[in-house]
């Protein structure tokens, strides 16, 4: 772009950093995805549960953009409506993990001492279990359903937020404005809630927003295994599982998987660009 400006005198183009472009594109993709899911009704033009048995297993065409599955249901409609299960489920999981994790991490970092040690051991215990095994156990115990899948995943989602929040609080509580709050005699609980945590909120919120991609992926995994959303409700992981028995009809599994992929990719790219910009060692000498 700089060379273009050289060739055409008087033309001044700001050199757009690649990371800015990536950030904007990824963000745009996510917004589009969310809008598509919200507008699933008019956009899909078909009922996701309606079976057109005459055109079972039909490849993508003008009538059915993503083809039909083994019961003649429109895959495009099912994918769009699947987002109505996958996205809110992921959002609830992350919200729950965020709230619990921030609360525990804030208390641990602020109180220190024995409280901190105990909470950190508790976090270690939950982190020792691989997420999916614990989620499978909880889901199996409660019986597989969308809500129970969300609970199962939320139960294992909070430890990472606890760790991060605790680290942030440990750092923030040494800053001058916190010391000032102590000096003027504010109650400790007030300091934690109104001074320290709000300072940690931006980092944590960004982490949570990016995390939704991972939550979508994990919830899809759980549903794929039959321990989350149940048929005939559409959910992205469940759709891939349903299409696995007819994999020659690749469109049934591939399009929902593609949507999950795009979502996770966009979230990852946003996370990467943010990290590249904020981490001083990686950013290098600028």
């Amino acid at each position, binding site marked *: 772009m700089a060379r273009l400006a050289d060739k055409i005198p008087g033309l001044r183009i700001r050199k757009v950093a690649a990371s800015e472009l990536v950030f904007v594109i990824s963000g745009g993709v996510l917004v589009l995805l969310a809008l598509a899911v919200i507008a699933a009704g008019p956009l899909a033009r078909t009922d996701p549960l309606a079976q057109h048995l005459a055109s079972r297993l039909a490849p993508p065409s003008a009538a059915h953009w993503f083809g039909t599955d083994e019961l003649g249901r429109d895959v495009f409609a099912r994918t769009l409506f699947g987002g109505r299960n996958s996205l809110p489920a992921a959002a609830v999981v992350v919200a729950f993990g965020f709230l619990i994790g921030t609360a525990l991490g804030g208390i641990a970092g602020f109180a220190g001492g024995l409280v901190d040690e105990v909470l950190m051991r508790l976090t270690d215990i939950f982190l020792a*279990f691989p997420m999916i095994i614990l989620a499978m*156990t909880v889901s199996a115990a409660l019986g597989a359903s969308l809500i129970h899948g969300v609970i199962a995943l939320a139960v294992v989602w909070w430890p990472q937020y606890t760790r991060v929040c605790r680290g942030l609080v440990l750092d923030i509580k040494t800053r001058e404005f916190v010391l000032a709050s102590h000096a003027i005699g504010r109650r400790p609980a007030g300091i934690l809630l109104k001074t320290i945590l709000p300072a940690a909120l931006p980092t944590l919120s960004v982490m949570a927003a990016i995390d939704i991609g991972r939550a979508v992926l994990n919830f899809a995994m759980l549903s794929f295994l039959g321990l989350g959303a149940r048929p005939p409700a559409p959910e992205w992981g469940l759709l891939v599982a349903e299409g696995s028995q007819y994999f020659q009809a*690749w469109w049934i599994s591939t399009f929902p*998987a593609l949507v999950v*992929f795009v979502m996770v990719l966009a979230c990852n790219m946003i996370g990467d660009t943010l990290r590249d910009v904020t981490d001083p060692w990686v950013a290098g000498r600028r």
Partner: protein
Amino acid sequence: MNYLVRRLLLLVPVVFGVTVIVFGVSHALPVDPVVAVIGEQAAEHPQIVAAYRARWSLNKPLPEQYVAFIGNALHGDLGVSLSSHRPVVQDLRDYFPATAELSVCSILITIVVAIPLGIVAAVFRGRPVDIVIRAGTLTGASVPVFWAALAALSIFYVHLGLAPGPGRLDTMDVPPPAVTGLYTVDSLLSGRLSTFFDALHHLMLPAIVLSGVTVGLLTRIMRTSMLAVLNQDYLRTARSKGAPRRRVVFRHALPNAAIPVITVVGLVFGELLSGAVLTETIFGWPGIGRYAYEAATVADFPAILGVAMLVAFAYLAVNFVVDLAYFAIDPRTREAVG
């Protein structure tokens, strides 16, 4: 030394916590274990139910039950699987080597692929190579592993016929005499080369699929770590003293950049196990991942809790070893803790 002892001691409450959670979950379940084990007909007879409860101490208060549970566990008794009707420990012993073989193979592939890629991406930062590598790793880390396994199976087995069928060996083949349980190692130990190649052939596709996710993660960590090290002043000094670029990268930068990678290998172990559940199920690989899945679908709680405990302990052990390695390699940790 004190640091290591402290870490070991801190592990003890975590280990106990794991057992408490496993015990708690198994007793918080809405399913009555008695009915599940002895069947509904036997459950009609109160004497049988009472005898069963007495045998397994189910009529004692919870803390006593917990003690009995721990006692049993220490004697290698984790209960009986509701679906296979064999002791859970025996099931785990049968299925664990398959998962271990798959995981180790995956980690090896990951390390061999990710470390060079990470180095190249960092050294040529900003150039097309870096961008291609980063795009590749992002893609690999974002592809849903359950779909990737299905697609790999469909392409390489169904259509191209390159990959073998499900299982660890061809149906005609006999497993080698068990020493480690890893078919590759055992067949080499007993000199059965054809079995070795067959086992390797069956390992390849699931291991590659499994490593798809971890390669992405490890490459990015390696790249970030390498970038952080490459910006350090001591490298500028080395270059200004005339050291050739290659020596600066490999002898001065790489050893320091490799340190976070070790930690990540420990963390990745957990990710591998999640991927293993899906990959093993799709490839029909007889490991504990698939065992856990099948147990979960039929609510076989002794089995799934046995897997949970085994995996949690293995994870703690791996991370402790990683801590040891960290301690041994990075002199800063030794100095910091005195």
